[in-house]
Protein backbone atom coordinates (compact mmCIF):
# COMPACT_ATOMS: atom_id res chain seq x y z
CA UNK A 1 0.00 0.00 0.00
CA UNK A 2 2.66 2.49 1.08
CA UNK A 3 6.11 1.91 -0.23
CA UNK A 4 9.30 3.79 0.44
CA UNK A 5 12.14 3.12 -1.96
CA UNK A 6 15.63 4.43 -1.12
CA UNK A 7 14.16 7.65 0.23
CA UNK A 8 16.55 10.43 1.19
CA UNK A 9 16.17 13.88 2.60
CA UNK A 10 18.92 16.46 2.59
CA UNK A 11 18.55 19.75 4.43
CA UNK A 12 20.72 22.72 3.67
CA UNK A 13 22.16 24.06 6.89
CA UNK A 14 24.79 26.52 8.01
CA UNK A 15 25.25 30.04 6.74
CA UNK A 16 23.80 30.48 3.22
CA UNK A 17 22.86 26.79 3.29
CA UNK A 18 26.32 25.75 2.22
CA UNK A 19 26.42 22.61 4.30
CA UNK A 20 24.30 19.54 3.74
CA UNK A 21 22.60 17.54 6.45
CA UNK A 22 21.50 14.06 5.47
CA UNK A 23 18.41 13.70 7.67
CA UNK A 24 17.23 10.53 5.94
CA UNK A 25 19.45 8.18 3.95
CA UNK A 26 18.26 5.44 1.58
CA UNK A 27 15.32 4.34 3.68
CA UNK A 28 13.08 1.66 2.25
CA UNK A 29 10.17 -0.26 3.77
CA UNK A 30 6.57 -1.06 3.12
CA UNK A 31 3.29 -0.66 5.03
CA UNK A 32 0.55 -3.08 4.02
CA UNK A 33 -3.10 -2.75 4.88
CA UNK A 34 -3.96 -4.18 8.28
CA UNK A 35 -0.38 -3.75 9.36
CA UNK A 36 1.33 -1.55 11.93
CA UNK A 37 4.88 -0.54 11.12
CA UNK A 38 6.75 1.02 14.05
CA UNK A 39 9.35 3.54 13.04
CA UNK A 40 11.59 3.71 16.09
CA UNK A 41 14.44 6.11 16.63
CA UNK A 42 15.98 8.60 19.01
CA UNK A 43 15.99 12.35 18.46
CA UNK A 44 17.64 13.26 15.17
CA UNK A 45 17.11 9.81 13.68
CA UNK A 46 14.88 11.18 10.91
CA UNK A 47 11.73 9.36 12.01
CA UNK A 48 9.50 12.45 11.98
CA UNK A 49 11.01 13.63 8.69
CA UNK A 50 9.93 10.35 7.13
CA UNK A 51 6.41 10.82 8.56
CA UNK A 52 6.29 14.33 7.08
CA UNK A 53 7.48 13.15 3.68
CA UNK A 54 4.80 10.45 3.62
CA UNK A 55 2.21 13.11 4.41
CA UNK A 56 3.59 15.36 1.70
CA UNK A 57 4.44 18.05 4.24
CA UNK A 58 8.07 18.19 3.17
CA UNK A 59 9.74 17.45 -0.13
CA UNK A 60 11.70 14.31 -0.93
CA UNK A 61 15.32 14.73 -2.00
CA UNK A 62 15.92 11.28 -3.44
CA UNK A 63 14.10 8.00 -3.93
CA UNK A 64 10.37 7.54 -4.16
CA UNK A 65 7.35 7.21 -1.91
CA UNK A 66 4.40 5.54 -3.56
CA UNK A 67 0.93 5.10 -2.12
CA UNK A 68 -1.22 2.52 -3.90
CA UNK A 69 0.88 2.98 -6.98
CA UNK A 70 0.80 6.81 -7.02
CA UNK A 71 4.00 8.77 -6.56
CA UNK A 72 3.49 11.04 -3.53
CA UNK A 73 6.12 13.53 -4.67
CA UNK A 74 4.36 13.80 -8.03
CA UNK A 75 1.10 15.10 -6.55
CA UNK A 76 0.39 18.45 -8.13
CA UNK A 77 -2.30 20.93 -7.29
CA UNK A 78 -5.01 21.23 -4.68
CA UNK A 79 -7.27 18.57 -6.12
CA UNK A 80 -4.64 15.81 -6.19
CA UNK A 81 -3.53 16.58 -2.65
CA UNK A 82 -7.09 16.67 -1.43
CA UNK A 83 -7.72 13.22 -2.87
CA UNK A 84 -4.52 11.96 -1.26
CA UNK A 85 -5.57 13.28 2.16
CA UNK A 86 -8.91 11.55 1.75
CA UNK A 87 -6.93 8.32 2.10
CA UNK A 88 -3.90 9.29 4.17
CA UNK A 89 -4.03 11.31 7.36
CA UNK A 90 -1.64 12.14 10.19
CA UNK A 91 -2.01 12.58 13.93
CA UNK A 92 0.80 14.23 15.87
CA UNK A 93 2.39 14.38 19.27
CA UNK A 94 0.82 17.35 21.01
CA UNK A 95 -2.98 17.12 20.84
CA UNK A 96 -3.41 20.56 22.44
CA UNK A 97 -1.60 22.35 19.61
CA UNK A 98 -3.81 20.74 16.97
CA UNK A 99 -6.88 22.58 18.25
CA UNK A 100 -7.76 26.25 18.22
CA UNK A 101 -8.52 27.02 21.89
CA UNK A 102 -11.08 29.65 20.88
CA UNK A 103 -13.43 27.12 19.29
CA UNK A 104 -15.04 23.93 20.59
CA UNK A 105 -12.93 20.87 19.86
CA UNK A 106 -15.53 19.39 17.51
CA UNK A 107 -14.87 22.21 15.02
CA UNK A 108 -12.28 19.85 13.48
CA UNK A 109 -15.22 17.73 12.29
CA UNK A 110 -16.98 20.73 10.72
CA UNK A 111 -13.80 21.59 8.81
CA UNK A 112 -13.71 18.09 7.33
CA UNK A 113 -17.35 18.43 6.31
CA UNK A 114 -16.81 21.83 4.68
CA UNK A 115 -13.83 20.57 2.75
CA UNK A 116 -14.89 17.06 1.78
CA UNK A 117 -18.58 16.47 2.38
CA UNK A 118 -20.55 19.70 1.76
CA UNK A 119 -23.39 17.65 0.23
CA UNK A 120 -24.02 15.53 3.34
CA UNK A 121 -27.09 16.55 5.35
CA UNK A 122 -27.04 17.64 8.98
CA UNK A 123 -28.63 14.49 10.42
CA UNK A 124 -26.49 12.16 8.36
CA UNK A 125 -23.34 14.05 9.30
CA UNK A 126 -24.24 13.89 12.97
CA UNK A 127 -24.70 10.13 12.62
CA UNK A 128 -21.28 9.77 11.00
CA UNK A 129 -19.58 11.80 13.73
CA UNK A 130 -21.21 9.73 16.44
CA UNK A 131 -20.20 6.54 14.75
CA UNK A 132 -16.59 7.52 14.38
CA UNK A 133 -16.51 8.73 17.99
CA UNK A 134 -17.80 5.34 19.04
CA UNK A 135 -14.99 3.64 17.13
CA UNK A 136 -12.45 5.64 19.18
CA UNK A 137 -14.46 4.81 22.32
CA UNK A 138 -15.61 8.29 23.16
CA UNK A 139 -19.08 9.12 24.40
CA UNK A 140 -20.44 11.77 21.96
CA UNK A 141 -22.42 13.43 24.75
CA UNK A 142 -19.24 13.92 26.76
CA UNK A 143 -17.07 15.50 24.09
CA UNK A 144 -19.27 17.31 21.57
CA UNK A 145 -19.48 21.04 22.19
CA UNK A 146 -16.60 21.00 24.70
CA UNK A 147 -13.59 23.29 24.42
CA UNK A 148 -10.09 21.79 24.18
CA UNK A 149 -9.19 22.76 27.75
CA UNK A 150 -12.19 20.85 29.06
CA UNK A 151 -10.94 17.59 27.57
CA UNK A 152 -7.97 15.42 28.49
CA UNK A 153 -5.01 14.82 26.19
CA UNK A 154 -6.21 11.26 25.55
CA UNK A 155 -9.68 12.46 24.61
CA UNK A 156 -8.30 15.12 22.25
CA UNK A 157 -5.99 12.62 20.63
CA UNK A 158 -8.93 10.28 20.06
CA UNK A 159 -11.00 13.14 18.60
CA UNK A 160 -8.21 13.72 16.08
CA UNK A 161 -8.24 10.05 15.15
CA UNK A 162 -12.06 10.17 14.88
CA UNK A 163 -11.66 13.16 12.56
CA UNK A 164 -9.36 11.11 10.34
CA UNK A 165 -11.90 8.26 10.36
CA UNK A 166 -14.59 10.51 8.89
CA UNK A 167 -12.60 10.31 5.70
CA UNK A 168 -12.19 6.95 4.09
CA UNK A 169 -8.58 6.68 5.19
CA UNK A 170 -6.44 3.70 4.36
CA UNK A 171 -3.23 4.85 6.04
CA UNK A 172 -2.69 6.67 9.30
CA UNK A 173 0.62 8.29 10.17
CA UNK A 174 0.72 8.38 13.97
CA UNK A 175 3.71 10.48 15.00
CA UNK A 176 4.42 10.10 18.75
CA UNK A 177 0.67 10.13 19.38
CA UNK A 178 0.94 8.83 22.92
CA UNK A 179 4.17 10.41 24.14
CA UNK A 180 2.31 13.21 25.88
CA UNK A 181 -0.42 11.10 27.40
CA UNK A 182 -0.55 9.77 30.92
CA UNK A 183 0.24 6.14 31.56
CA UNK A 184 -3.32 5.16 32.44
CA UNK A 185 -4.75 6.54 29.17
CA UNK A 186 -2.00 5.84 26.66
CA UNK A 187 -2.84 2.17 26.56
CA UNK A 188 -6.35 3.08 25.39
CA UNK A 189 -4.94 4.90 22.37
CA UNK A 190 -2.59 1.98 21.65
CA UNK A 191 -5.53 -0.44 21.83
CA UNK A 192 -7.41 1.84 19.46
CA UNK A 193 -4.58 1.58 16.94
CA UNK A 194 -4.84 -2.19 17.23
CA UNK A 195 -8.59 -2.00 16.58
CA UNK A 196 -8.02 0.16 13.48
CA UNK A 197 -5.45 -2.30 12.25
CA UNK A 198 -8.00 -5.08 12.64
CA UNK A 199 -10.32 -3.03 10.37
CA UNK A 200 -7.68 -3.19 7.64
CA UNK A 201 -6.02 0.18 8.11
CA UNK A 202 -2.29 0.52 7.58
CA UNK A 203 -0.54 2.46 10.33
CA UNK A 204 2.89 4.06 10.35
CA UNK A 205 3.58 4.38 14.06
CA UNK A 206 6.44 6.77 14.72
CA UNK A 207 7.85 6.53 18.25
CA UNK A 208 10.97 6.90 20.34
CA UNK A 209 9.73 4.45 22.95
CA UNK A 210 10.67 0.86 22.28
CA UNK A 211 8.23 -0.63 24.75
CA UNK A 212 5.34 1.05 22.91
CA UNK A 213 6.72 0.02 19.52
CA UNK A 214 6.54 -3.60 20.51
CA UNK A 215 2.94 -3.75 21.76
CA UNK A 216 0.94 -3.22 18.54
CA UNK A 217 3.49 -3.52 15.76
CA UNK A 218 3.95 -6.18 13.13
CA UNK A 219 7.11 -4.70 11.73
CA UNK A 220 9.79 -2.69 13.49
CA UNK A 221 12.14 -0.33 11.69
CA UNK A 222 15.00 0.96 13.85
CA UNK A 223 16.45 4.22 12.55
CA UNK A 224 19.86 5.59 13.44
CA UNK A 225 21.12 8.90 12.12
CA UNK A 226 18.73 8.82 9.20
CA UNK A 227 19.46 5.29 8.04
CA UNK A 228 17.88 1.95 8.88
CA UNK A 229 20.01 0.08 11.40
CA UNK A 230 17.72 -2.89 11.60
CA UNK A 231 14.26 -3.86 10.40
CA UNK A 232 12.07 -6.91 10.39
CA UNK A 233 9.17 -8.66 12.10
CA UNK A 234 8.76 -6.86 15.45
CA UNK A 235 9.06 -9.99 17.55
CA UNK A 236 12.33 -10.95 15.86
CA UNK A 237 13.87 -7.50 16.14
CA UNK A 238 12.96 -7.34 19.82
CA UNK A 239 14.01 -10.87 20.78
CA UNK A 240 17.00 -11.22 18.49
CA UNK A 241 18.49 -7.74 18.07
CA UNK A 242 21.56 -7.94 15.87
CA UNK A 243 22.69 -4.38 15.39
CA UNK A 244 24.81 -3.00 18.27
CA UNK A 245 22.63 0.11 18.26
CA UNK A 246 19.38 -1.85 18.67
CA UNK A 247 20.99 -3.81 21.46
CA UNK A 248 22.02 -0.65 23.25
CA UNK A 249 18.52 0.79 22.93
CA UNK A 250 16.96 -2.39 24.25
CA UNK A 251 19.32 -2.57 27.20
CA UNK A 252 18.62 1.08 28.10
CA UNK A 253 14.84 1.13 27.97
CA UNK A 254 13.62 0.96 31.58
CA UNK A 255 11.50 -2.07 32.27
CA UNK A 256 9.35 -2.64 35.26
CA UNK A 257 10.33 -6.19 36.06
CA UNK A 258 13.96 -6.14 34.89
CA UNK A 259 16.78 -4.06 36.22
CA UNK A 260 19.17 -2.59 33.71
CA UNK A 261 21.84 -5.04 34.86
CA UNK A 262 19.47 -7.99 34.28
CA UNK A 263 18.58 -6.68 30.83
CA UNK A 264 22.28 -6.44 29.96
CA UNK A 265 22.82 -10.02 31.06
CA UNK A 266 19.83 -11.33 29.11
CA UNK A 267 20.87 -9.99 25.75
CA UNK A 268 22.22 -12.67 23.45
CA UNK A 269 26.01 -12.62 23.58
CA UNK A 270 27.65 -10.03 21.36
CA UNK A 271 30.66 -11.34 19.51
CA UNK A 272 31.88 -7.78 19.12
CA UNK A 273 31.65 -7.89 15.35
CA UNK A 274 29.70 -5.87 12.85
CA UNK A 275 26.52 -7.74 11.84
CA UNK A 276 27.42 -7.21 8.18
CA UNK A 277 31.20 -7.32 8.02
CA UNK A 278 31.99 -9.55 11.00
CA UNK A 279 34.98 -9.04 13.24
CA UNK A 280 37.23 -7.90 10.43
CA UNK A 281 35.08 -4.82 10.09
CA UNK A 282 35.94 -3.32 6.75
CA UNK A 283 32.59 -1.58 6.26
CA UNK A 284 32.07 2.14 6.45
CA UNK A 285 28.35 2.06 7.13
CA UNK A 286 27.35 2.80 3.57
CA UNK A 287 26.63 -0.80 2.64
CA UNK A 288 23.03 -1.79 2.10
CA UNK A 289 21.11 -3.99 4.48
CA UNK A 290 21.76 -7.71 4.74
CA UNK A 291 18.96 -10.22 5.30
CA UNK A 292 19.95 -12.40 8.26
CA UNK A 293 16.72 -14.36 8.61
CA UNK A 294 13.38 -14.23 6.80
CA UNK A 295 12.45 -10.57 6.52
CA UNK A 296 14.94 -9.49 9.20
CA UNK A 297 17.46 -7.00 7.81
CA UNK A 298 20.42 -5.45 9.53
CA UNK A 299 22.84 -2.73 8.49
CA UNK A 300 26.53 -2.10 8.98
CA UNK A 301 27.61 -0.88 12.42
CA UNK A 302 29.65 1.96 10.95
CA UNK A 303 28.47 5.47 11.59
CA UNK A 304 27.40 6.03 8.00
CA UNK A 305 29.75 8.95 7.56
CA UNK A 306 32.82 7.01 6.57
CA UNK A 307 33.64 5.78 10.08
CA UNK A 308 34.64 2.11 10.27
CA UNK A 309 32.23 -0.42 11.72
CA UNK A 310 34.84 -1.72 14.16
CA UNK A 311 36.66 0.44 16.63
CA UNK A 312 40.26 0.88 15.57
CA UNK A 313 42.24 -1.75 17.54
CA UNK A 314 45.09 0.73 17.95
CA UNK A 315 42.84 3.32 19.55
Amino acid at each position, binding site marked *: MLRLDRVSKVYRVGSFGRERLHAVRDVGFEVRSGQVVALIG*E*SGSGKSTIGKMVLGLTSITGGAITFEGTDVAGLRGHRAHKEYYRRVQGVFQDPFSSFNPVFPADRVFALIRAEYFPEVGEAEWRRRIEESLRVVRLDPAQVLGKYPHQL*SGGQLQRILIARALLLDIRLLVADEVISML*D*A*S*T*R*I*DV*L*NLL*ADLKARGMGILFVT*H*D*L*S*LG*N*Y*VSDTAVILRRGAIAESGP*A*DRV*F*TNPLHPYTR*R*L*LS*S*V*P*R*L*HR*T*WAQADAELPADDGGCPVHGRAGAGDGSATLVEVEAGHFVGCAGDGEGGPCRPDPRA
Partner: protein
Amino acid sequence: MSGVSLEVSDLTVHYRTLRGDVHALEGVGFTMADGEIMGLVGESGSGKSTLGKSLIRMDSRMRHVRGTVRLDGEELPIGDQAAMTPFRYHRVSLIPQYSMSALNPTRRIGRMIDELLESRGVRPASVRAELLRRLDLVGLSGQVLRRYPIELSGGMKQRVVMVLSTLLDPSLLIADEVTSALDVSTQRAVAQTLVEFRDRGYLAGMIFVSHDISLVNQIADTIMVMYAGKPVEKGTAEAVVNGPRHPYTRMLISSLPEVGVTHAERRLEGIPGSPPGLLDPPRGCRFRERCPLAFDKCDQEPPFVEVDRGHWAACWKAG
Protein backbone atom coordinates in the same frame (compact mmCIF):
# COMPACT_ATOMS: atom_id res chain seq x y z
CA MET B 1 20.24 3.68 56.18
CA SER B 2 20.19 5.46 59.49
CA GLY B 3 17.68 7.78 61.13
CA VAL B 4 14.98 9.79 59.48
CA SER B 5 16.31 12.71 57.44
CA LEU B 6 13.12 14.15 55.95
CA GLU B 7 9.80 14.24 57.71
CA VAL B 8 6.81 15.77 55.96
CA SER B 9 3.56 15.89 57.86
CA ASP B 10 0.11 17.08 56.87
CA LEU B 11 1.54 19.30 54.14
CA THR B 12 -1.26 21.17 52.40
CA VAL B 13 -0.61 23.60 49.59
CA HIS B 14 -3.19 25.40 47.50
CA TYR B 15 -2.86 27.39 44.29
CA ARG B 16 -4.72 30.65 44.29
CA THR B 17 -6.74 31.18 41.14
CA LEU B 18 -9.50 33.58 40.16
CA ARG B 19 -12.03 30.79 40.50
CA GLY B 20 -10.89 29.76 43.96
CA ASP B 21 -8.22 27.62 45.57
CA VAL B 22 -6.95 24.55 43.77
CA HIS B 23 -6.23 21.90 46.38
CA ALA B 24 -2.99 20.71 44.78
CA LEU B 25 -1.57 19.03 47.88
CA GLU B 26 -3.77 17.85 50.71
CA GLY B 27 -2.46 16.40 53.97
CA VAL B 28 0.72 14.91 52.53
CA GLY B 29 2.76 13.01 55.10
CA PHE B 30 5.77 10.73 54.62
CA THR B 31 9.31 10.20 55.86
CA MET B 32 12.58 9.57 54.10
CA ALA B 33 15.63 7.88 55.64
CA ASP B 34 19.16 9.18 55.33
CA GLY B 35 20.57 8.19 51.93
CA GLU B 36 17.21 7.23 50.53
CA ILE B 37 16.33 7.77 46.89
CA MET B 38 12.58 8.12 46.75
CA GLY B 39 10.88 7.86 43.39
CA LEU B 40 7.81 10.08 43.23
CA VAL B 41 5.42 8.99 40.53
CA GLY B 42 2.03 10.18 39.42
CA GLU B 43 0.17 11.38 36.37
CA SER B 44 -0.01 14.98 35.28
CA GLY B 45 -1.84 17.03 37.87
CA SER B 46 -1.20 14.56 40.69
CA GLY B 47 0.82 17.14 42.63
CA LYS B 48 4.26 15.57 42.31
CA SER B 49 5.96 18.69 40.98
CA THR B 50 4.04 20.85 43.46
CA LEU B 51 5.37 18.70 46.29
CA GLY B 52 8.91 19.08 44.98
CA LYS B 53 8.54 22.84 44.69
CA SER B 54 6.95 23.18 48.12
CA LEU B 55 10.07 21.79 49.75
CA ILE B 56 12.26 24.56 48.35
CA ARG B 57 10.39 27.53 46.91
CA MET B 58 6.72 28.31 46.73
CA ASP B 59 5.90 30.65 43.90
CA SER B 60 3.55 33.58 44.34
CA ARG B 61 0.46 31.60 43.43
CA MET B 62 1.13 28.91 46.00
CA ARG B 63 -0.22 29.16 49.52
CA HIS B 64 1.12 27.10 52.39
CA VAL B 65 -2.08 26.20 54.21
CA ARG B 66 -0.71 23.91 56.92
CA GLY B 67 1.78 21.18 57.63
CA THR B 68 5.46 20.97 58.47
CA VAL B 69 8.66 19.77 56.84
CA ARG B 70 11.64 18.75 58.97
CA LEU B 71 15.03 18.14 57.41
CA ASP B 72 17.66 16.44 59.61
CA GLY B 73 15.53 17.32 62.62
CA GLU B 74 15.29 21.01 61.77
CA GLU B 75 12.05 22.57 60.62
CA LEU B 76 12.14 24.17 57.18
CA PRO B 77 10.32 27.54 57.08
CA ILE B 78 8.70 26.63 53.78
CA GLY B 79 6.00 29.30 53.94
CA ASP B 80 8.53 32.10 54.51
CA GLN B 81 10.42 33.05 51.34
CA ALA B 82 13.16 35.03 53.09
CA ALA B 83 13.77 32.53 55.86
CA MET B 84 14.11 29.73 53.29
CA THR B 85 16.96 31.48 51.47
CA PRO B 86 19.82 30.08 53.60
CA PHE B 87 18.51 26.55 53.04
CA ARG B 88 18.16 26.79 49.29
CA TYR B 89 20.97 25.27 47.25
CA HIS B 90 23.05 24.71 50.42
CA ARG B 91 20.76 22.19 52.13
CA VAL B 92 17.91 21.62 49.68
CA SER B 93 18.59 21.72 45.98
CA LEU B 94 16.24 21.40 43.03
CA ILE B 95 16.71 20.44 39.43
CA PRO B 96 13.53 21.89 37.96
CA GLN B 97 11.80 20.35 34.99
CA TYR B 98 13.31 21.57 31.69
CA SER B 99 16.19 23.27 33.55
CA MET B 100 18.72 22.03 31.03
CA SER B 101 16.84 24.02 28.42
CA ALA B 102 16.87 27.10 30.65
CA LEU B 103 20.63 27.67 30.74
CA ASN B 104 21.39 31.26 29.82
CA PRO B 105 22.29 31.12 26.11
CA THR B 106 24.40 34.29 26.26
CA ARG B 107 26.76 33.06 29.00
CA ARG B 108 29.55 30.55 28.83
CA ILE B 109 28.80 27.62 31.18
CA GLY B 110 31.71 28.56 33.49
CA ARG B 111 30.62 32.16 33.94
CA MET B 112 27.03 31.12 34.49
CA ILE B 113 28.11 28.71 37.24
CA ASP B 114 30.25 31.42 38.88
CA GLU B 115 27.37 33.88 38.87
CA LEU B 116 25.06 31.33 40.35
CA LEU B 117 27.50 30.43 43.12
CA GLU B 118 28.07 34.11 43.96
CA SER B 119 24.34 34.74 44.14
CA ARG B 120 24.20 32.00 46.79
CA GLY B 121 27.10 33.49 48.74
CA VAL B 122 29.72 30.98 47.66
CA ARG B 123 33.14 32.10 46.40
CA PRO B 124 33.59 30.29 43.03
CA ALA B 125 37.32 29.83 43.59
CA SER B 126 36.68 27.88 46.79
CA VAL B 127 34.80 25.14 44.95
CA ARG B 128 36.63 25.30 41.61
CA ALA B 129 38.75 22.19 42.15
CA GLU B 130 35.75 20.18 43.31
CA LEU B 131 33.72 21.40 40.32
CA LEU B 132 36.38 20.19 37.87
CA ARG B 133 36.71 16.89 39.72
CA ARG B 134 32.98 16.25 39.51
CA LEU B 135 32.72 17.29 35.87
CA ASP B 136 35.44 14.79 35.16
CA LEU B 137 33.50 12.15 37.06
CA VAL B 138 30.48 12.57 34.76
CA GLY B 139 32.73 12.44 31.71
CA LEU B 140 32.98 16.16 30.95
CA SER B 141 36.31 17.93 30.59
CA GLY B 142 37.00 21.34 32.12
CA GLN B 143 36.75 22.68 28.56
CA VAL B 144 32.98 22.54 28.91
CA LEU B 145 33.15 25.62 31.16
CA ARG B 146 34.22 27.68 28.16
CA ARG B 147 31.37 26.51 25.98
CA TYR B 148 27.97 28.08 25.41
CA PRO B 149 24.91 25.94 26.18
CA ILE B 150 24.10 25.64 22.45
CA GLU B 151 27.39 23.82 21.94
CA LEU B 152 26.41 20.98 24.29
CA SER B 153 24.11 18.03 23.70
CA GLY B 154 21.08 17.44 25.90
CA GLY B 155 22.87 14.78 27.92
CA MET B 156 25.89 17.05 28.48
CA LYS B 157 23.70 19.95 29.61
CA GLN B 158 21.81 17.70 32.00
CA ARG B 159 25.12 16.49 33.49
CA VAL B 160 26.29 20.07 33.95
CA VAL B 161 23.03 20.86 35.73
CA MET B 162 23.39 17.80 37.98
CA VAL B 163 26.95 18.65 38.98
CA LEU B 164 26.00 22.26 39.61
CA SER B 165 22.97 21.50 41.74
CA THR B 166 24.83 19.07 44.00
CA LEU B 167 28.11 20.96 44.29
CA LEU B 168 27.56 21.86 47.95
CA ASP B 169 26.51 18.33 48.96
CA PRO B 170 22.87 19.15 49.79
CA SER B 171 20.94 17.05 52.30
CA LEU B 172 18.10 16.77 49.84
CA LEU B 173 18.04 16.94 46.06
CA ILE B 174 14.74 17.17 44.23
CA ALA B 175 15.16 16.02 40.63
CA ASP B 176 12.01 16.86 38.67
CA GLU B 177 11.66 14.89 35.42
CA VAL B 178 15.38 15.22 34.74
CA THR B 179 15.45 12.54 32.08
CA SER B 180 12.16 13.00 30.28
CA ALA B 181 13.61 14.99 27.37
CA LEU B 182 16.53 12.62 26.83
CA ASP B 183 16.97 9.61 24.57
CA VAL B 184 16.82 6.22 26.27
CA SER B 185 20.55 5.53 26.36
CA THR B 186 21.31 9.01 27.72
CA GLN B 187 18.43 8.65 30.17
CA ARG B 188 20.02 5.54 31.58
CA ALA B 189 23.42 7.22 31.95
CA VAL B 190 21.93 10.29 33.67
CA ALA B 191 19.81 8.24 36.08
CA GLN B 192 22.75 6.03 37.02
CA THR B 193 24.93 9.09 37.59
CA LEU B 194 22.46 10.35 40.19
CA VAL B 195 22.72 7.04 42.05
CA GLU B 196 26.48 7.34 41.97
CA PHE B 197 26.25 10.87 43.39
CA ARG B 198 24.31 9.44 46.33
CA ASP B 199 26.83 6.61 46.79
CA ARG B 200 29.66 9.15 46.88
CA GLY B 201 27.85 11.32 49.40
CA TYR B 202 27.26 14.27 47.05
CA LEU B 203 23.66 14.24 48.19
CA ALA B 204 22.21 12.72 51.33
CA GLY B 205 18.78 11.99 49.92
CA MET B 206 16.89 12.47 46.71
CA ILE B 207 13.32 12.78 45.55
CA PHE B 208 13.29 11.61 41.95
CA VAL B 209 10.10 12.89 40.35
CA SER B 210 8.98 11.08 37.23
CA HIS B 211 5.86 9.98 35.41
CA ASP B 212 7.59 6.74 34.43
CA ILE B 213 7.39 4.07 37.13
CA SER B 214 9.60 1.68 35.13
CA LEU B 215 12.39 4.25 35.14
CA VAL B 216 11.93 5.09 38.81
CA ASN B 217 12.10 1.42 39.69
CA GLN B 218 15.57 1.22 38.14
CA ILE B 219 17.16 3.63 40.60
CA ALA B 220 14.90 4.26 43.58
CA ASP B 221 15.02 2.60 46.99
CA THR B 222 11.42 3.52 47.69
CA ILE B 223 8.51 4.64 45.54
CA MET B 224 5.70 6.97 46.48
CA VAL B 225 2.67 7.09 44.20
CA MET B 226 0.52 10.22 44.18
CA TYR B 227 -3.01 10.64 42.92
CA ALA B 228 -4.97 13.90 42.79
CA GLY B 229 -2.80 15.70 45.34
CA LYS B 230 -2.37 12.91 47.85
CA PRO B 231 0.04 10.03 48.33
CA VAL B 232 -1.81 6.77 47.85
CA GLU B 233 1.05 4.37 48.44
CA LYS B 234 4.66 4.33 49.57
CA GLY B 235 6.99 1.40 50.10
CA THR B 236 10.22 -0.15 48.93
CA ALA B 237 10.45 -0.11 45.15
CA GLU B 238 10.31 -3.90 45.16
CA ALA B 239 7.13 -4.00 47.27
CA VAL B 240 5.30 -1.29 45.31
CA VAL B 241 6.10 -2.78 41.91
CA ASN B 242 5.60 -6.45 42.78
CA GLY B 243 2.98 -6.23 45.51
CA PRO B 244 1.08 -2.98 45.10
CA ARG B 245 -1.66 -2.52 47.71
CA HIS B 246 -3.59 0.47 46.40
CA PRO B 247 -6.00 -0.23 43.52
CA TYR B 248 -4.69 2.80 41.63
CA THR B 249 -1.10 1.54 41.75
CA ARG B 250 -2.26 -1.92 40.69
CA MET B 251 -4.22 -0.62 37.72
CA LEU B 252 -1.43 1.76 36.74
CA ILE B 253 1.15 -1.01 36.70
CA SER B 254 -1.06 -3.42 34.80
CA SER B 255 -1.71 -0.80 32.11
CA LEU B 256 1.96 -0.47 31.18
CA PRO B 257 3.06 -2.01 27.92
CA GLU B 258 6.51 -3.48 28.32
CA VAL B 259 9.00 -4.77 25.80
CA GLY B 260 7.82 -8.31 25.07
CA VAL B 261 4.12 -7.70 25.73
CA THR B 262 2.08 -7.61 22.54
CA HIS B 263 -1.52 -6.72 21.91
CA ALA B 264 -2.18 -10.05 20.20
CA GLU B 265 -1.11 -12.04 23.27
CA ARG B 266 -2.49 -9.88 26.02
CA ARG B 267 -4.68 -6.83 25.64
CA LEU B 268 -3.88 -4.40 28.45
CA GLU B 269 -6.53 -2.09 29.83
CA GLY B 270 -6.25 1.52 30.91
CA ILE B 271 -8.02 3.11 33.87
CA PRO B 272 -11.44 4.39 32.78
CA GLY B 273 -12.37 7.96 33.67
CA SER B 274 -10.11 10.82 34.63
CA PRO B 275 -8.84 12.33 37.90
CA PRO B 276 -11.21 14.67 39.78
CA GLY B 277 -10.88 18.43 39.47
CA LEU B 278 -9.03 19.88 42.45
CA LEU B 279 -10.87 23.20 42.56
CA ASP B 280 -13.55 21.48 44.57
CA PRO B 281 -12.22 17.99 45.27
CA PRO B 282 -14.71 15.28 46.21
CA ARG B 283 -15.04 14.14 49.80
CA GLY B 284 -13.46 10.86 50.83
CA CYS B 285 -11.13 8.86 48.64
CA ARG B 286 -10.21 10.81 45.52
CA PHE B 287 -9.84 7.65 43.42
CA ARG B 288 -13.32 6.42 44.34
CA GLU B 289 -14.97 7.37 41.02
CA ARG B 290 -12.57 5.24 38.99
CA CYS B 291 -12.06 2.44 41.48
CA PRO B 292 -13.57 -0.99 40.85
CA LEU B 293 -13.35 -1.83 44.57
CA ALA B 294 -15.15 1.29 45.82
CA PHE B 295 -17.84 0.76 48.47
CA ASP B 296 -19.87 2.88 50.93
CA LYS B 297 -17.01 3.57 53.29
CA CYS B 298 -14.97 5.26 50.55
CA ASP B 299 -16.89 8.50 51.03
CA GLN B 300 -14.78 8.83 54.16
CA GLU B 301 -11.16 9.76 53.74
CA PRO B 302 -8.95 6.64 53.99
CA PRO B 303 -5.90 7.33 56.21
CA PHE B 304 -2.36 6.80 54.90
CA VAL B 305 -1.42 3.89 57.17
CA GLU B 306 1.36 1.35 57.40
CA VAL B 307 -0.13 -1.83 55.93
CA ASP B 308 3.08 -3.78 56.12
CA ARG B 309 6.53 -3.01 57.48
CA GLY B 310 7.71 0.10 55.64
CA HIS B 311 4.73 -0.03 53.27
CA TRP B 312 1.99 2.60 53.50
CA ALA B 313 -1.28 2.82 51.60
CA ALA B 314 -4.37 5.01 51.72
CA CYS B 315 -7.19 2.59 50.99
CA TRP B 316 -9.83 1.00 53.16
CA LYS B 317 -9.31 -2.29 51.38
CA ALA B 318 -5.51 -2.30 51.53
CA GLY B 319 -5.18 -3.39 55.18
